């Protein structure tokens, strides 16, 4: 994998920030976009833009072909059986909310349990809190090991005949933990529970085969995998989706509309009320082509190598605290002793280095870690070891800046 050539394709990365070359280490928040994706969206708006599934005119057909072509591309990308199982939406949050609002409210009762973990992003936590409140079900948390991993024995011990839904992140956006979702799915199915996977940090980095995992739902966002913001995907098994009610009603999703009742279109359109995110889907298709051409396994290997290198280099810094397991996805969450992560991020920004600081939309996890906030450096296919060297140098400067001169 020629990182230099890959980086060339990301125009935004070739700029100075605060008089330093930009070092972008915040891809877990959102990834940058290659020129192929920017051009695909540009071309769509310049040549093909039209509404889908309605007009008889040529542009309408072209837009529909591109939109539905993107759906087929996504199906192939996650190895789903059918495009009926691919629902386009705004992102992971919207997908998880659909499952929690439609499936959970129809299939979970007061005696039932919904199992999640303390490492969930708010988007895979609050929808279940709300579903539990609405149905009277109990929300149950799987325990975490000290390094932020899940033991399968704990999974077995937590689930029982009351378990109706298990909702777990594929990869933790804070700890970098890669969860054994295939094994957890198997245990969930032994209890006839459905398995919902938050794939926001999974699909951009790890080859996903939903049939092999056998999960019932898998939600992810385009913008974390080189596609534009505003496009996301919910995968759901056809037999489950068939029996779920839409939660958004209006144009595009109807079959017959009478004065007092209506019927819905078939899958997947019954869940896509309103004019869909057509340009976003076109951009997502271009992003999938881009990632596949480089090779998802190569990308993952590169990120794993960067994470290992970052761990090794960062551990040499005196007074650094690193959170999460040794074996991890391409991110490192940390704190410097006596320096608040905002201050760390501000000093790094002055050096042109972009990292995330805050609670990372995971307040219960921050409590579990016993911190109010952390800093996070996250890597993607365009990052290099030099980026990490610059990060480490920046952190040393941060320590020096806050350690000296103020006493």
């Amino acid at each position, binding site marked *: 994998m020629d990182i230099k050539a890959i980086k060339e394709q990301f125009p935004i990365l070739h700029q100075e920030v*605060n*008089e330093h070359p930009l070092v972008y280490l915040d891809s877990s928040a959102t990834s940058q976009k290659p020129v192929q994706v920017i051009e695909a969206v540009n071309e769509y708006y310049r040549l093909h833009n039209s509404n889908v599934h309605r007009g008889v005119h040529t542009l309408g057909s072209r837009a529909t072909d591109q939109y539905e072509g993107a759906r087929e591309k996504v199906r192939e990308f996650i190895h789903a059986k059918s495009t009926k199982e691919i629902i386009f939406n705004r992102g992971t949050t919207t997908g998880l909310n659909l499952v929690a609002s439609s499936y959970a409210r129809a299939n979970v009762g007061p005696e039932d349990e919904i199992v999640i973990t303390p490492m969930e992003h708010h988007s895979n936590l609050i929808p279940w809190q709300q579903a539990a409140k609405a149905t009277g079900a109990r929300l149950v948390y799987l325990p975490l090991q000290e390094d932020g991993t899940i033991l399968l024995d704990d999974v077995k011990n937590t689930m029982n005949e009351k378990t109706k839904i298990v909702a777990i992140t594929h990869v933790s956006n804070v700890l970098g933990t890669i969860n054994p979702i295939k094994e957890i799915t198997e245990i969930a199915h032994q209890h006839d529970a459905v398995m919902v996977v938050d794939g926001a940090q999974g699909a951009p980095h790890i080859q996903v085969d939903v049939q092999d995992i056998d999960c019932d739902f898998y939600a992810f966002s385009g913008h974390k995998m080189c596609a534009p913001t505003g496009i996301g995907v919910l995968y759901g098994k056809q037999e489950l989706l068939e029996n779920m009610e839409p939660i958004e009603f209006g144009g595009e999703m109807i079959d017959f509309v009478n004065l007092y009742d209506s019927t819905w279109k078939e899958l997947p359109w019954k869940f896509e009320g309103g004019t869909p995110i057509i340009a976003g889907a076109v951009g997502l298709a271009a992003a999938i082509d881009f990632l596949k051409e480089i090779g998802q396994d190569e990308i993952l290997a590169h990120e794993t190598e960067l994470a290992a290198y970052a761990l090794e280099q960062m551990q040499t810094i005196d007074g650094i605290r690193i959170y999460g397991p040794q074996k991890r996805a391409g991110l490192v969450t940390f704190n410097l002793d006596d320096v*608040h*992560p*905002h*201050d760390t991020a*501000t*000093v790094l920004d*002055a*050096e042109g280095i972009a990292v995330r*600081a*805050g*609670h990372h939309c995971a*307040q219960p996890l*921050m409590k579990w870690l016993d911190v*109010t*906030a952390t800093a996070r450096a996250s890597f993607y296919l365009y990052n290099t070891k030099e980026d990490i060297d610059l990060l480490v140098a920046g952190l040393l*400067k941060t320590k020096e*800046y*806050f350690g000296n*001169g*103020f*006493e």
Partner: protein
Amino acid sequence: MALNNLDTLYRQVIMDHYKNPRNRGTLEEGSVTVDMNNPTCGDRIQLQLDIQDGIVKDAKFQGEGCSISMASASMMTQAIKGLEVEAALEMSEMFSEMMLGEDIDTEDMGDIEALQGVSKFPARIKCATLAWKAMEKGVHNE
């Protein structure tokens, strides 16, 4: 921006308030207690105000946050003690204007003037205003 430009943000007096916060703690008979947080970053403050006859007799805070938010809380409590409520609110308004980069008369603001540089770091303005927002809420609740 070179690293030494950070000095416009992290002035010595700010770091002094951060490392040696004034009025950190709790009031025995605080007449008002306000909890406030910055949901985007997790900073939080608990401010207690003892207001008698329209005058801020005492103010103490606890909380967790970055150097800017904690230094600002320290400076704010120091500045409003002994002030009439109206004057404290007026000062808060001036502080907001200062954060917007407006040219204001900082003569009576003491150490607070040191936070002027925050206005050049838009991402950090909310850190600096947290304690002042808590004070405004406390006064209005009273």
